[in-house]
């Protein structure tokens, strides 16, 4: 069994807006090994995104610990977190978040230019099956294609951790499957620890493990004895 890539212990997060306090996470203990593909489910507001943001170094925990390999994320400063994101983490968001004024290839270069050991933008794009559309602007691409550009952008740095927040949320079933296939492919090829948040229970079938969130905690974890290929599911 390989070492834990991501690990959290008693991770908690409280948002304060004025006098109102919202507890988003109430002590999450979690571990993910190298190359694992984990699906995270849970009702809206249960703290999934908050969790992902903290382990991705986008946000800071209120208490508890989060570790990436032997690095303690919770004690890192802003600069350390930036470097962590730059060198180790790939993000995929629900709304793609492409820079509209850059072509697909340039959107990927945005990352490869600053990463330590990137692949070529072209290589990343062909991994997600977009070799034909590299010089198109986001506005000239379909939603699924845009999301695949976002995936190419996330994986081009050969990240150890790939974090996806509802990557298929804005897509129809067929397109969603394509995106999912791309995610599974890079998970396999790069052995990146992959965390995918989804509201789509069907997706759980492709994962190694499924983590269910509820009210800021992990309610249950189930291990899939057998993983289905993406092509076998639909919604």
């Amino acid at each position, binding site marked *: 069994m390989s070492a834990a890539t991501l690990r959290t212990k008693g991770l908690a997060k409280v948002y304060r807006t004025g006098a109102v306090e919202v507890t988003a996470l109430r002590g999450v203990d979690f571990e993910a090994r190298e190359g694992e593909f984990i699906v995270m489910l849970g009702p809206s507001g249960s703290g999934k995104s908050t969790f992902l943001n903290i382990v991705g170094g986008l946000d800071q925990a209120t208490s508890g610990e989060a570790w990436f390999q032997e690095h303690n994320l919770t004690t890192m400063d802003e600069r350390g977190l*930036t470097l962590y*994101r730059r060198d180790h983490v790939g*993000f995929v968001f629900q709304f793609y978040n492409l820079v509209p004024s*850059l072509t697909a290839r340039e959107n990927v270069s945005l*990352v490869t230019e600053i990463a330590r050991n990137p692949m070529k933008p072209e290589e990343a794009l062909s991994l997600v099956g977009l070799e034909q559309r590299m010089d198109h602007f986001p506005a000239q691409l379909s939603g699924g294609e845009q999301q695949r550009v976002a995936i190419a952008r*996330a994986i081009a740095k050969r990240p150890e951790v790939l974090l996806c*927040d509802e990557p298929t949320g804005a897509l129809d079933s067929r397109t969603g499957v394509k995106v999912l296939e791309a995610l599974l492919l890079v998970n396999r090829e790069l052995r990146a620890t992959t965390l995918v948040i989804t509201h789509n229970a069907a997706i759980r079938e492709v994962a190694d493990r499924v983590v269910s969130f509820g009210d800021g905690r992990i309610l249950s974890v189930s291990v899939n004895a057998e993983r289905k290929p993406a092509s076998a599911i639909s919604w």
Partner: protein
Amino acid sequence: MSALQRKLMRDLIRLWPQALAIALVMAAGAATLILGVGAHASLSDTRSAYYERNRFADVFATLTRAPKILADEIGRIPGVSAVDVRIQKTALLDLPDMVEPASASIVSLPDVQPQRLNILYLRSGRLPVAGDEREAVISEPFAKAHGFDLGSTFQAILNGRKRSLHVVGIALSPEFIYALGPWDIMPDDRRFGIVWMSEKTLAAAYDLTGAFSSVALKLLPYASEGAVIEQLDTLLNRYGGLGAIGRKDQTSHAFLDAELKQLEAMSRILPPIFLVVAAFLVNMTLTRLITLEREQIGLLKAVGYGNMAVGLHYLQFVSAIAVIGAAIGIAAGIWLGGGLTRMYSDFFHFPFLVFRIDPATYLLAVGTTVISAVLGAWQAVRGVVRLPPAVAMTPPAPTQYRQFLVTLYRALGRISQTVTMVVRHLSHGWIRTASSVLGIALAGAILVGSLWSFDSVDFMIDVTFHQADRQDATVSFTQEEPYAALYEVARLPGVLRAEPYRSVAVKLRHGHVERRAAVTGKPPGTDLSRVLDQHFTPVRLPESGIVLSDMLARILDTQVGDLIEVELLEKNRRVVEIPVTAIIQGYLGLMSFMDIDALNRLVREGTVISGVHMIFDEEQRVPLLQELKQIPAASFVALQRISLQKFRETLAQNILVMITVYVSLAVIIVFGVIYNFARISLSEQGREIASLRVLGFTRTEASSILLAEIFLIVALAQPLGWLIGSGLAYMMVKGFESELYRVPLVLEPRVFAESSLIVMGAALVAALIVRRRIDRLDLVEVLKTRE
């Protein structure tokens, strides 16, 4: 090129109209800076180099007559490094191509050794042969005005004798860069020139053999000018010295100084205005851009770009605009500088005047423009830096409008929904609203602050030439003439009325302050050349006592009733104490007046006059002018009507250029502010406006929201613009005030109205351009896109 730089380029291209509007405001700042600093440097550097090379003197004095031997004694005054004594007179000219009489300052050139000071810059030809009675060098502008060349001849009356002079050289002199004839308000190269002749010839003509009537000194560095002047005056006292002056009182130098001062004021006032407005524009545009690009910023941070890198990206964006603006501005500044220099060469005569800019000035222009952009961007970029990457991933919370303001406006009465939207939106983005109002106000201020001066000049002309000095012409005599000369002039053809005057050079003293001035004596109830009090009503000169112009009174710190010391610089050098009986209005120079008989009694010379003012019958003009040219006793004939007309013509030309420049500058600001404001407003309210259209509002109704916002901003800006503009005008009046001249602060309602009309016109055009975008709003597209 990195992907981020590509984004920057494409953002610039996508937002080009807004970027250009901002760049133009910056360009105006850079251009006025280049123009002001460049013209100032060109003018003052050229002047210093010219002074240096041609040894422009430091101290000047005129006197009646002193033996040349005195030059040695003058040279021994501590601090004096060189002395040049010469003969200098004013003489009437009779020119073949001109009906009117012209005059010249006749200056001697040493015969034996070369000129020591105020060395001529010979354009062509040579200096006169010693003792040659006909050979003359003439000033280049005068030669050009008459088409004179080497070999041309013209007539001059030297000491009452008419001679034909022969041009052997054409030259310029550092002493006469700005050559203003007596009684003139502006140089007129046709009617006033400089003529240099052999000293021997002039000595013979003016009965000054072995003597001189003018002296120029060069001082050692660090010598005290005041001390030298004092000792020189003591030496020249016995020889009818009229009081020595330093460079600051030398006409040519002083007018150049006044121009330099104006340029300096321009480069202190205008560029900062533009740079401030540019900073506002950068601020509001970037703030909006960043709101729109929140998610992209979050993304950049999420994928590992540091805060600095992202912040820098936006700073580069505005710096790029600033560099474009500065480049346009520098090009425009150089172009305008060339034009200004050409305009200068009409008034200031240098051997060589080019608009040349020190590389440091370019750096200053680019530097200040970029700094203003960065300062404007600062707050917005700080927001970018602070934006936590996670928060950036979530769409911004819906705008929170200020409920209380809306409630307030509602309470004020039944107000339509659109007005509510307008007020709400304006007060929500109050920083943007306030900076837009201030920007438009500054545009108005530039207009008020420049247009007022034309009324002021008109007012000054009206007071000076239509109310005070109402004569058509003035004949100045070479020296005092008996009263009978008045009747001789009055008898000339076409003279309708003639009035004598007497002018005596004096030093006025009160307390520790002392000034050289001329006291003008006039008959008590004059009708042509009148003395006006501070309410512009004619003053009857009292039988005793002296009347001072307000500037002179202020300098001497005297009030009506004070006794001041008057030292006569001519004839007997008596010092008498005379009461100040009135303080009067005067815009040009330092003036003082007395009753002509009282003045003559003071000088103890009997009834003599220095010249005659007259009005003449226009029908008889030609024969009269023919006669005036021939008056042997006259040294100068001022033709106020003609000068005034020429002044107005020149002014009209320059006014057109100046108005074009100032209006363009103001329009650039208005356009930049309104266009950017409207685009931002449209970007924020596009959905609301499209929704109104979907609900069935017409295009006009929908766009009226935006137009109403713009209208409110422009309206609010007007009074503020008037106020700031009036402040600028006041500062200019104070800044330009000198002993040479003073401009009255005249703020006609018309100026405010014109400024507002120009501002509103420009705003309307900008608004209509944006309105076209509203008309073309793709309703489906707007409603579909996520905010």
